[in-house]
């Protein structure tokens, strides 16, 4: 579960630098990958790869990436306590 007080927000402008802080980078095809192992793409809850343009956030649990998509965002509601 996610405590509703523990939300870090960011704007579009900060996306790339924030990913770098998370030790992620973007590969030549636009996918988010581990900075130290660029062949390893990060994954969403459904096990899908995610492009930088689709990136909306991260939640814990081995870093689950969230897509910039209303369905993915509303799914988070079930995890907020």
């Amino acid at each position: 579960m996610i405590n509703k007080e523990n939300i870090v927000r960011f704007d579009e402008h900060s996306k790339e630098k924030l990913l770098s802080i998370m030790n992620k980078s973007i590969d030549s095809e636009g996918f988010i990958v581990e900075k130290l192992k660029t062949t390893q793409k990060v994954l969403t809850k459904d096990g899908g790869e995610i492009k930088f343009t689709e990136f909306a956030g991260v939640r814990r649990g081995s870093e689950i990436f969230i897509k910039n998509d209303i369905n993915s965002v509303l799914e988070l509601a079930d995890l907020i306590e």
Partner: protein
Amino acid sequence: MTFGSICKNILDFFLPSNGITLENNTFDLSFFSGNKFLEVKQEVNNHYNIHIDLDKATPEQIKKITEFYPQIRDEDALILQENNYTDLKKYLEELKNVPILKYFKGKINDQDYNALRTSVFIQNKFNLGDDVSLYLEQLYREFGVRGRNICNLYGEGYFESFIQPFYVLLEADSRKDEFLKQFDQFVMEQPITYFVSQHRTKEQISQDLFGKIEKNKKYGIKKLNIHGIGESNIKKIKSFIKEIETRTDLKIPSSIEKDGRISLCLEII
């Protein structure tokens, strides 16, 4: 360590003489563009928001935030882009407990429930006059035709006026187990509803409707509700009304046009 204390540690590191105590105060953190690398905003009495502009950070400051990051991650924090946060907040504060969502939780499958949840969100945005085209596209991409149909049915009030009463009826009759099959037919075959799509021409719509009318005649269904939103869809429906003017086997007992949408009840004799 709590999320608040991590935020406070970040504040203390970058702004040591801040004079704000951890006790009796709450904190949150955001990465927004601003005038300075770090700004503290007191949102309410004892709540402080720490804004960091990563573009204004020095390499040393970035290095330090990178060191703080695992603590944030491990504290069950959710890191979310502002527009998505706004949508989530709206849903949690205003829509999560709408009666229809509470009612159908566990009564329809998870995929359909998720489509209904997104539909509730979209309809609320639509009612506020916001552009919902991107949300509709995302709904369709995730849930396909089924999701779009659920959204149309919810938007025209069928969940409250038809599907929920139908469930209640089956439940009272100890036939609850029949509901999912009937629901599936109602959503996918749409026997009594037709939603005019902006992507279909008036000729294609007439063809769809005449096909549906014939099918309903065959199965003894004497009703077809036609719905359209927006000027061009209203025109298409009006063109269809002209086409059936001379038909004696079709009647229009009611037609309501209001706020850029039209609902037409067609009686099949």
